[in-house]
């Protein structure tokens, strides 16, 4: 599974990467971006299976990036997770309409992120087995 982390905080990306590396999910690459525009550029250039994105970012926020992703057929199979401080009802409803699989509110413990990763990885593996 190749994972893309999009967050404007370098150290938040580092923390998420650490959790990924400590979790028992098969990962063959972790990519990073600092905003939605960079995120889309990486998605166009690489085959990514899981997107972990913040909402509030400069240049292009996470919601706009997710809207662009939802409009493009090539990313139909991309698993999307929001990791954001914004836990408002409006954002959550918006996320649901953009095929976001999980909405993780900051602050979160490492274990909570680990559980999200494991459940997505299990879902992907189950999907592969059933084909």
């Amino acid at each position, binding site marked *: 599974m190749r994972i893309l982390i999009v967050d404007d905080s370098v150290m938040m990306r580092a923390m998420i990467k650490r959790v990924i590396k*400590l979790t*028992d999910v098969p990962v063959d690459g972790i990519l990073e971006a600092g905003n939605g525009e960079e995120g889309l550029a990486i998605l166009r250039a690489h085959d990514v299976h899981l997107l972990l994105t913040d909402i509030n970012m400069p240049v292009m926020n996470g919601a706009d990036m997710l809207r662009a992703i939802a409009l493009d057929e090539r990313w139909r199979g991309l698993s999307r997770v929001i990791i954001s401080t914004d836990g408002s009802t409006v954002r959550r409803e918006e996320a649901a309409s953009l095929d976001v699989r999980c909405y993780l509110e900051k602050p979160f*413990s*490492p*274990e909570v992120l*680990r559980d999200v990763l494991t459940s997505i990885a299990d879902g992907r593996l189950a999907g592969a087995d059933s084909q």
Partner: protein
Amino acid sequence: MRSTLDAAVGIVPATRRHVVGIGEWAVSSRAGDVLMTHGLGSCVAVCLFDPHTTVAGLLHFLLPEARINPDRARLQPAVFADTGIPLLLSAAAQQGLVRRRAIVKLVGGAEMVGPPDVTFNTGRRNVLAARNLLWRNGVFVARQDVGGTAARTLHLSVTTGRLLVFNQDACKEL
């Protein structure tokens, strides 16, 4: 009473009990052993188990940081979370525990009744210190039974990793 509790945790006459006191730790890979500790008030017990190699470890620490008493930390590192947890992990690794597989549970961290208007929050500090040190050492916490105001006792089976926590009159498997 004791035979009922023993049966609950799987203690049979040939079982070895390792009783871990405050500021102590134990690791075992011997089938049939039980690691146990009593009087977990504001102290926290860190319980480890590797289901593949059946190695179990137990640390009962009293305070978060060794810097408040470096002399004591040198003599009894298991008194403090930041010296005791690395010690426990290292000792367990020597007996075959692999961190990535380790099932880690925390018990204790109660707020024991003290003088009025004085809240040291020792129990909460200890729980956070344990989580901090485990994260630093690349280990996730699977379950925890912490907080409250009553002291706990626990039994950890080396054979199965089964952890029983006794809190006042209740007993539960964590």
